[in-house]
């Protein structure tokens, strides 16, 4: 009797403990996959704009685009990611807080191929196709799809080739490449000034007011003109290859760089990889 009672009480207690747990969410039954069709990365669903149509739209217009996710910033006070198709590129901003963000953190994780939350954010993506509905907006010169609602599409993936835009630096034509995956060749690291006026190869934050984990700013030159580039920490966090590569730079190093051509009151490339020559 004693044993029976004890075991009964234990079973009841276990039941009690289980009652404190959250009910697991039911997994929706996946729908059967459609028959495979010939893959065309330029193909759009009905009612979706081409890149040219998007470029021609006015600021404030509602837009619907489709493309392949090339990079994604961390899920923090909104979701921000870089989308491309063979004709052009877009910056998508699902603004808001918490449930106000029009893509769930779970769905966002599906479009970010190489993220490891424990190790830090490395939001380089492998080309998941998405449809984005939103409003064409401009923020400090950056043209984006804001107030975006995102649907992940069942499609083959596609990754854009980086386009070399070194020759366009300092020209008006560079803006045509906004948001694209781009590369810069044979650039030279130039000095930045730290808080004490010393020459350094990079700064944590634009004025050196940060610390490891902050955005990294560094100067590079081509043909005698110097440009300021950034490793955006929400895109490539402390510990990523590019972040560590910039921390190891020396003034005078020769580099090839790759990244997304973001715009902030002018060209502000978000660098994602560096090769020191």
């Amino acid at each position: 009797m004693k044993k029976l009672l004890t075991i009964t009480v234990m079973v009841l207690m276990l039941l009690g403990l289980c009652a404190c747990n959250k009910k697991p969410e039911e997994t929706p039954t996946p729908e059967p996959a459609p028959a495979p069709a010939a893959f065309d990365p330029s193909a759009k669903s009905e009612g979706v704009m081409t890149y040219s149509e998007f470029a021609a739209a006015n600021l404030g217009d509602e837009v619907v685009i489709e493309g392949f996710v090339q990079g994604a910033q961390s899920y923090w006070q909104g979701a921000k990611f870089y989308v491309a198709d063979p004709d052009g590129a877009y910056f998508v901003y699902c603004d808001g807080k918490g449930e106000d963000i029009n893509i769930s953190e779970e769905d966002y994780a599906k479009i970010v191929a190489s993220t490891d939350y424990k190790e830090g954010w490395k939001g380089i993506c492998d080309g998941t196709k998405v449809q984005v509905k939103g409003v064409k907006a401009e923020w400090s010169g950056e043209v984006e799809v804001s107030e975006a609602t995102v649907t992940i599409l069942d499609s083959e993936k596609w990754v854009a080739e980086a386009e070399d835009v070194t020759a366009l630096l300092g020209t008006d034509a560079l803006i045509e490449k906004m948001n694209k995956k781009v590369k810069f060749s044979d650039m030279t690291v130039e000095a930045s000034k730290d808080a004490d006026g010393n020459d350094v190869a990079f700064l944590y934050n634009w004025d050196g007011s940060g610390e490891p984990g902050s955005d990294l700013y560094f100067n590079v030159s081509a043909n005698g003109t110097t440009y300021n580039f950034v490793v955006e920490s929400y895109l490539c966090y402390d510990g990523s290859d590019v972040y560590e590569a910039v921390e190891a730079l020396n003034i005078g190093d020769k580099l090839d760089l790759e990244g997304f051509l973001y715009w902030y009151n002018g060209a502000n490339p978000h660098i994602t990889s560096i090769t020191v020559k």
Partner: protein
Amino acid sequence: MRKLLKVLFTVLLFMNICGCHGSLGAQVFAIPEAFDENRSYEISFWAKNDTNINQVNVYKKAISDFEEIYPFIKVNLKLYTDYSRIYNDVITNISTNTTPNVCISYPDHIATYKTGVNTVVALDELIEDGKYGLGGSDVKFDGPKKNEMVEAFLDECIIDEQHYALPFMRSSEALYINKTYVEKLGYEIPDVLTWDYIFEVSEAALAKDEDGNYLVNGQKIMIPFIYKSTDNMMISMLKQLDAPYSKEDGTIEIFSDTTRDILKQISKHAESGAFSTFKISSYPANFLNAGQCIFAIDSTAGATWMGSNAPLLDISEEQLVDFETIVKPIPQFDQKNIRMISQGPSLCIFNKADPQEVLASWLFTQFLISNSVQVGYAMTEGYVPVTLKAQNSAEYLDYLSKAGSDNKTYYQIKIDASKLLVDNIDNTFITPVFNGSASLRDAAGSLVENTCKSARRGETINDAYFDSLFEKVTSLYHLDQVQSIESDKDLGPLPTTAKILLGTLLVSWILLAIYGYREWRKQKTQ
């Protein structure tokens, strides 16, 4: 077997007792008799700066000076540039008991931190303590006494009738005006601007020539009025009208007819393009400095970015336009009754198992409100020291007197912004702080942002729109879940899980009672 069962039984019993409760929390902090100086301490300080290296340098110097006075206390600095990040990290670290010792915070955030048991140290006894309190006999530096604090700022740190923070710096909002353009439009600038005035001038600034250039600046871009913080905008407008926002007990009152009227007024000017926000258009300072904005409302702590001669610039030299900048209070509904928000960082101390460590944290916190730190930090932006001792110090008065003597340390606009707050301390206000007040603040901003976006898109803004918006915002910010302290609402039926748990406990106790009774009967019969 019996032993094993007993052990399992005990473990399960313990788990049932603890399972549905949170952490038991730390002991209430009690001030030690004496500070033990014969050991070493390592404390962490999580600090926020405005992406401003001068502020970082003030923090570093403060730590260095403090460690010289107390060489056995090492302070580790962690830098942030975003209050939300600090808040997020603190919340994460509360659950793992790895909070910092001292942390820059907003009172709204502290109200959430202190929902944990004894997580944040109540400072009242420390403030008053004869040995280690403000101006205490055993404090080794010249810190302020309690009566040398600005009382209004100290009172802002009261949550649930106790001080859970010390103010660190205070700022407000200021209206930065392109005076050149306002006069070009044919208007004179009054000492205190009204909302009607600012919207009228903003609409007038939208006139274009036949090529589509704005007449006032000759450019293709002009957003006459940009507000950086739309939560402050809504809160300030409601306060100026003495309209409801929230009560001290956490009752939400923002969804009123007055709020609708304010939003209707804003929507008209958002639709015309006369008004925009930071979230929609970007930093007001950038547009102001490029001659593309006439009225920019931002923190007084953003003054170093404002104006043609601003020491900090975010646009290229080629985009910069030459104009005269002046600083005024934010627009008012009643020019004779100025109301402006008080904001700025405060310092809270997290509780630890070792009261000596908490005392070390308290001494460092006090050091951060000593004159050298207060004056040093206030000079980095349009901040105001939180102590009368610093405000009246020769060094600070000398700093204020040199306004305009250069475009760096003594930048005119920055010092004008500081003076604006110093002159209006009695006109400042704060909003009630409770668990959920941070969400309400976000919701206030969201009302303005959503209305502006809808107006720009040409949506119909009417009562039906506001009904829907209020419902959406209430749900998104969980305002329907913010419980007022004195709420006597019916909480509804118990959840099923709670019923199962309570049932399990009841059955367990009944079985235990039966077992006990049988044992007692057995012993009696033997």
